[in-house]
């Protein structure tokens, strides 16, 4: 029996690195310190698992050798005029490197889950900027925490304990040293523990932020309420924001997915930038997948753009709304797809899914997913952070190395290795032609 310490959890953007995983006879028997999601993953990852490569024959998917699956996958990509390469957020940076290289080689469009997550944040970032920091700054200094359109007690279970309200920092030691503000359309579990809960009308975030900015400047708001919030309360919260020593705004998909999308983020970034006139204030997106931040980071240094990257002209180009995967699919512009560690058939709107499933589809994933069920080629892979090493980036862009704690089944190579083989085969096929 062997206990490995300092294990980095491969679930969400918190990337907690204090897990202790105990392995006996090659199996994980316990995983301590992590949250419910983490524990569930470590103890159940073998469920609904893909065990061998498959290929579609009519209505069925039949087993096939790995080499042949790689060949078929490569052939699909080479034959396609405009393939999409999607997913990436739940795999290692090393696999993401190869994804970009593959997309460049086949002249396709590569996109990651930011496109349905914090893509709008990026778009606002590009227009306004972004005052931010690493999580330790918040832990040590912040006396005011705001969660806006984010419900960490359901989504990032240890965020508050590790980084914000409950963390023991150099200057802030406990819950008593911090004030919590929560903004949401409904009284979530997180809202219940807040000192200030602002219930905002759905799609009303932009107006509310604008009103807060006015409140900060003591400007007169000529309404009784904005976005369903009484003006007196807005002014009170504005004072709280202004009066702190160090504030941190954590924001989630409540802002990116509601009407206004990137404009909500424009308003948020402007609000936090304004606050820096009076106090120290930072902001940070609550990243969902454990390595979506890594996907953005890798795409950026290699292509100049964080998501929705098109290589059809032989160089990287970027135009969300045109080169983003849901738009490409909705307009039926692609003719093949490869999906890596993601499940768009479950997570995309129906119209996009229909397009995805109409064309040849390759899936590389450890799990049997809705997308894998419909794929033409399926290649099972190892779990990053459990069965293979890899680099990942936390929600604040701090890079960490994920550990391997158990061996993968012999039929499951890492995403990195599978992609390398597909890339080699694609190059071989292109030479041939």
């Amino acid at each position, binding site marked *: 029996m062997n206990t490995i310490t300092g294990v980095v959890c491969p679930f969400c953007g918190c990337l907690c690195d*204090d897990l202790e995983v105990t392995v006996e006879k090659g199996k994980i028997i316990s995983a301590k310190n992590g949250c419910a999601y983490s524990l569930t993953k470590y103890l159940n990852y073998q469920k609904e698992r893909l065990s061998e490569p498959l290929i579609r024959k009519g209505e069925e998917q039949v087993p096939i050798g790995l080499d042949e699956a790689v060949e078929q996958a490569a052939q699909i990509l080479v034959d396609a005029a405009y393939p999409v390469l999607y997913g990436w957020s739940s795999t290692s940076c090393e696999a993401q490197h190869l994804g970009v290289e593959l997309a460049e080689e086949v002249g396709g469009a590569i996109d990651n889950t930011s496109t349905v997550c914090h893509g709008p944040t990026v778009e606002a970032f590009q227009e*306004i900027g972004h005052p931010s920091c690493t999580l330790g700054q918040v832990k040590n200094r912040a006396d005011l925490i705001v969660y806006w359109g984010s419900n960490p007690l359901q989504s990032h279970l240890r965020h508050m304990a590790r980084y914000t309200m409950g963390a023991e920092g150099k200057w802030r030691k406990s819950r008593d040293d911090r004030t919590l503000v929560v903004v949401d359309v409904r009284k979530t579990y997180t809202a219940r523990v807040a000192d200030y809960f602002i219930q905002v009308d759905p799609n009303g975030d932009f107006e509310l932020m604008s009103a807060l900015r006015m409140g900060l400047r003591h400007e007169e708001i000529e309404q009784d309420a904005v976005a369903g919030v009484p003006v007196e309360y807005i002014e009170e919260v504005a004072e709280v924001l202004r009066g702190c020593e160090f504030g941190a705004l954590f924001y989630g998909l409540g802002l990116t997915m509601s009407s206004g999308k990137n404009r909500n983020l424009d308003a948020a970034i402007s609000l936090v930038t304004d606050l820096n006139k009076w106090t120290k204030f930072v902001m940070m997106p609550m990243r969902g997948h454990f390595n979506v931040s890594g996907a953005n980071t890798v795409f950026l240094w290699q292509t100049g753009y964080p998501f929705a990257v098109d290589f059809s002209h032989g160089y990287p180009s970027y135009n969300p709304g045109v080169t983003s995967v849901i738009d490409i699919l909705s307009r039926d512009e692609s003719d093949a797809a490869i999906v890596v560690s993601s499940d768009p058939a479950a997570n995309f709107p129906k119209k996009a899914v229909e397009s995805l499933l109409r064309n040849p589809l390759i899936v590389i994933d450890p799990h049997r997913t809705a997308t894998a069920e419909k794929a033409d080629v399926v290649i099972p892979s190892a779990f990053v952070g459990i069965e293979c090493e890899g680099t990942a980036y936390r929600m604040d*862009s701090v890079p960490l190395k994920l550990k391997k704690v158990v061996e993968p089944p012999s039929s499951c190579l890492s995403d990195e290795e599978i992609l390398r083989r597909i890339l080699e085969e694609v190059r071989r096929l292109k030479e041939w032609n």
Partner: protein
Amino acid sequence: MELSLELLIKNTIVYDPSNGVNGERMDLSVRDGKIVESVDLNNAKVLDASGMIAMPGGVDIHSHIAGPKVNKGRELRPEDHLRRIERKTRLKRSGVGYSVPTTFTTGYWYAGMGYTTVMEPATAPLETRHTHEELNDTPILDKACFPLLGDNWFIMEYLKNGEIEKCAAYVAWLLKAVKGYAVKLVSPGSVEAWGWGGGLREIDEVVPNFDITPREIIRGLCKVNDLLGLPSPIHIHCNNLGSPGNYRVTLETMKCVKDLAKGGRPSIHIVHVQFNAYAGSGWSDLSSGATKLARYVNRHSHVTTDLGQVIFGDTTTMTADGPWQYILHNLSGNRWVNHDVEAETGGGIVPYQYRRRNYVNAMQWTIGLEFALQVKDPWKICLTTDHPNGGPFIEYPRIMAWLLSREARDAAMKRINKTARRRSILGSLDREYSLSELAVITRAAPARILGLRHKGHLGVGADADIALYRIDPSETDLSKDYRKVRKALRRAAHTIKEGEIVVKDGEVVRVPEGKTFWAEAEAPEEALKDVWQDLRERFEKYYTVRLENYPIGVEYLRRPAPMEIKMEGG
């Protein structure tokens, strides 16, 4: 194409100032990636370099090309990326960019200009894993990175207590842990203050909560650097960067470590000195402090500098100087990215345009050149723009032309703000750099200051990193034909890296992997034991990662090249 391990470069005019070679026509022999006395003529590949000059491959001592700050700069500037695109070829990866190019493109463009070694000068230790990932994807060039240490909590605490040995042990441990090369300070103490929204303008102000001054941090790290025997002096971005009147802080900074210099070696390297060479009290009376700083540098042997020259046009500013970047955001109204790193440092990014007709920008431009022309010994200057802060590195040849040619300067001066032109003394400076002096500031001096003994020269045993430019000094008037010279310097006729031809006429023809250097520094043993104790007790209180997950394994460097460093007298 068969790879020949032996290469003979014939009939070239060599500028190798480190070895006293100043425009001599000779042959250069290369074997197994090194310069050698001679090669076997039956075996060697022959490169006819008639009509070309040869210099050692360019060495850039300070250029922001890789890491979290640079990458956020890339994210901020999709519009900048549209200025230049690079298509994928059989040999090259695609890319984009102008002031913040993507990594593959960065390697190709530097090599295209005849540069072969580049230093990433500012990386937060906590995030240096990222920096190495990007350096790995920067092809051809040899490289290293400098960890930011001037606001580090462990360091400030050790220095406050006067514990130099423990501080040295910690720094040695840290350099090994993050694979860093040199000690870098950016506005020491000020960035910790910025963690609360403050900043320090003078070196005797006290860092809030840490009861230490920038002067004490600078002196302390200078002593540590010396104790460890690190190859390069401490590199410092002085406090109060960018502000009128800041030349005084720069002088104080240089003075404060004068007594610590040993054996005639420099004890301090002032980075992008232009940004810290301002006199005056406000923007409208901003004037030049370059003459005063040049005078000090001329009289003292313990200081080296790099320029930080401004180039007119659009670029992206990015430094660890969080407070300064916020000031620039307010001054310019441009977008602002801030990124503070727990227990270590901070930083900010603001796009910026240097305008000829803007009084302040025009003064900045003249100040950099005034400094370069008034420092008598070129071994004390390195040519940089603090890429991309002053301007993109691909515009270096513009600066080279301004230094080589009075006429080039005059032509540029005609178009700048009139008041600046009148107030600056640049018009009265006749000096023109020789090719030999240019070779010093672009390769020989940076290599020497960095302690890279096999770089920046073409003596036997040096790395065979060579740049050939299509300039014939006997036919070309460097001063009058500056446009031709600039063009030739922009696109190397050949760039040779470790004995292989990697560039022909500015185009990449081979893409080898470059090496990553770092300092494997020996630490004082007893002190190291104490430091381990401190790390075990305090690390997880300060940080949000575990100590065991902080060090970066050598597997993160594609071509690791550690430099074994022994302590003085050890």
